[in-house]
């Protein structure tokens, strides 16, 4: 079997920066990503189909992304794109599918940088074609230059919603309106974190700039509490606080949460419920070490910190990998990592402010008829009924309902199911055991399995 010193999953800022740092320490690096090029979510298609005009929203970040991608291309790491990882074995062998064939390699150190996914915002009718994530629409913008057409509504909360809206306007696109679902009192809640946030004012200033751009363009911003999507074969209307409006596209957003699909499936890799982010995250030390020897996690997959913090934690984890592989002594690692740890702390300073401003929307308010598990079409009401019958948590729920057992394995619904069950039982979500995932974490074909033998 193929052996590789450092195997990195994910070509977002965390994985790319880790690869560059590891190569600088002389490590052999193999990097896998199921995307078809480097950049991850934030820097997707930068330099290709995504090249924002100077000064337009997201342009600074795209420039940073381009620099990172160029440095990565020059660093001598082996990159495999279109490579989707679906198993990590006891001896740190990983298995991935690539062009219809499964491949395997054993990693001396495995560094997982799987990034974040959009936190689902379950509302009645959100499974209709025409309803998708704000981040999903942004992905269409970056990877194919698509702009919303017809009556496009944005709903929810969080920085990405405002950034996307500003990006659409800057390219001549139109938005029918923004439904702000953020819980009232955000600025009051967040005020005590403001001094810390102002130590890195760039974040706040950029956000205020996007909002100002929308105001200038006259996009209606409407505060709403309840929202539903309606339609037969596709979305035709949205209903909010008793008002009904025609809609061709509804984009939902409630922040992003760590993508723990791979880490949760690894035996003995401990996770905790993160209250501020309403999701599970792996238990890590400052180097990114999990509870499994030789397996590290960096970037938003470890907890949401944004692109710059992700790149720094990638470098920090790479230095620790170099120590574990004997390329650095502990003293050398510490000397190199010191400034990076300080910079990461500075980048993370605004996070408590953002978390307080946009706390994830409460699961208790999701109406009974709303589908929670999109794959198996299980409603919040049925999850609540099963909880009343004695299902203790998401794993026990599987004995009652198929929630979390479809092809996405609870990737999308897991945190929502956990929060709904906890609210029904009157306990904090962290008191329930999070949904376990299993390898293969994606459907694998017989042909792919056969190619492994």
């Amino acid at each position, binding site marked *: 079997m193929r052996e590789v010193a450092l195997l990195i999953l994910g070509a977002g800022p965390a994985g790319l920066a880790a690869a560059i740092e590891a190569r600088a320490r002389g490590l052999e690096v193999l990097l896998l990503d199921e995307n078809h090029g480097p950049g991850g979510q934030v820097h997707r298609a930068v330099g290709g*189909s995504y090249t924002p005009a100077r000064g337009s929203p997201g342009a600074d970040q795209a420039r940073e992304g381009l620099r990172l991608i160029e440095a990565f291309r020059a660093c001598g790491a082996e990159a495999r794109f279109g490579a989707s990882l679906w198993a990590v074995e006891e001896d740190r062998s990983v298995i991935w599918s690539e062009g*219809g064939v499964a491949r395997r390699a054993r990693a001396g150190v495995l560094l997982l940088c799987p990034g974040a996914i959009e936190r689902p915002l379950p509302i009645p009718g959100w499974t209709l074609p025409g*309803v*998708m*994530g704000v981040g999903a629409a942004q992905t269409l913008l970056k990877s194919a230059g698509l702009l*919303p057409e017809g009556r496009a509504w944005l709903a929810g909360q969080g920085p990405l919603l405002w950034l996307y809206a500003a990006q659409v306007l800057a390219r001549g696109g139109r938005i029918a309106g923004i439904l702000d679902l953020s819980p009232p009192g955000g600025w009051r809640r967040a005020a005590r974190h403001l001094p810390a946030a102002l130590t890195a004012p760039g974040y706040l200033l950029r956000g205020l700039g996007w909002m100002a751009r929308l105001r200038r363009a006259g996009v209606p911003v409407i505060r709403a509490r309840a929202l539903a999507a309606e339609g037969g074969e596709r979305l035709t209307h949205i209903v909010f606080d008793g008002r009904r409006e025609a809609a061709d596209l509804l984009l939902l957003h409630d922040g992003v949460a760590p993508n723990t699909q791979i880490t949760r499936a690894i035996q003995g890799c401990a996770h905790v419920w993160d209250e501020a982010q309403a999701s599970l995250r792996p238990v890590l030390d400052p180097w990114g070490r999990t509870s499994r020897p030789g397996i590290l996690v960096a970037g938003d997959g470890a907890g949401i910190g944004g692109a710059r913090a992700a790149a720094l934690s990638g470098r920090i984890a790479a230095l620790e990998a170099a120590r574990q592989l004997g390329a650095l002594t502990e003293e050398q690692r510490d000397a190199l990592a010191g400034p990076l740890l300080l910079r990461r702390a500075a980048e993370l300073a605004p996070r408590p402010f953002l978390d307080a401003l946009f706390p994830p929307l409460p699961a208790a308010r999701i109406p009974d008829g709303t589908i929670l598990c999109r794959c198996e079409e299980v409603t919040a009401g049925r999850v609540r009924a099963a909880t009343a019958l004695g299902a203790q948590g998401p794993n026990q729920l599987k004995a009652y309902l198929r929630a979390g057992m479809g*092809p996405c394995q609870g*990737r999308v619904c897991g945190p929502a199911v956990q929060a709904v069950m906890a609210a029904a039982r009157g306990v904090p979500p962290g008191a329930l055991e999070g949904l376990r995932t299993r390898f293969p974490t994606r459907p*694998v074909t*017989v042909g792919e399995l056969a190619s492994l033998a």
Partner: protein
Amino acid sequence: MFRRSGPTDCTILWEGRALPARAGEPLAAALLAAGVVAFRETPVSGAPRGPFCLMGACFDCLVEVEGVPNRQACLVPVTPGMRAGPQRGARGAP
């Protein structure tokens, strides 16, 4: 739902119908830009579904590509002449 802000450079075949596309873009983007909103029917209730996450997480964009079922249209890059069609009914390992 969506319109293009840039040019196309090839065509793909969706259920035998030629649609404009750009090589390398996600198949899901090409379909959405051409006005295709429902990519599949759910095996549970037969309800129409279209892409939701565009990043490989939700599996709502499953289609058949060149006769192979269960392909995530958001992760498949367009190649000129690519043939695809909706996914109906059962999914999982073929």
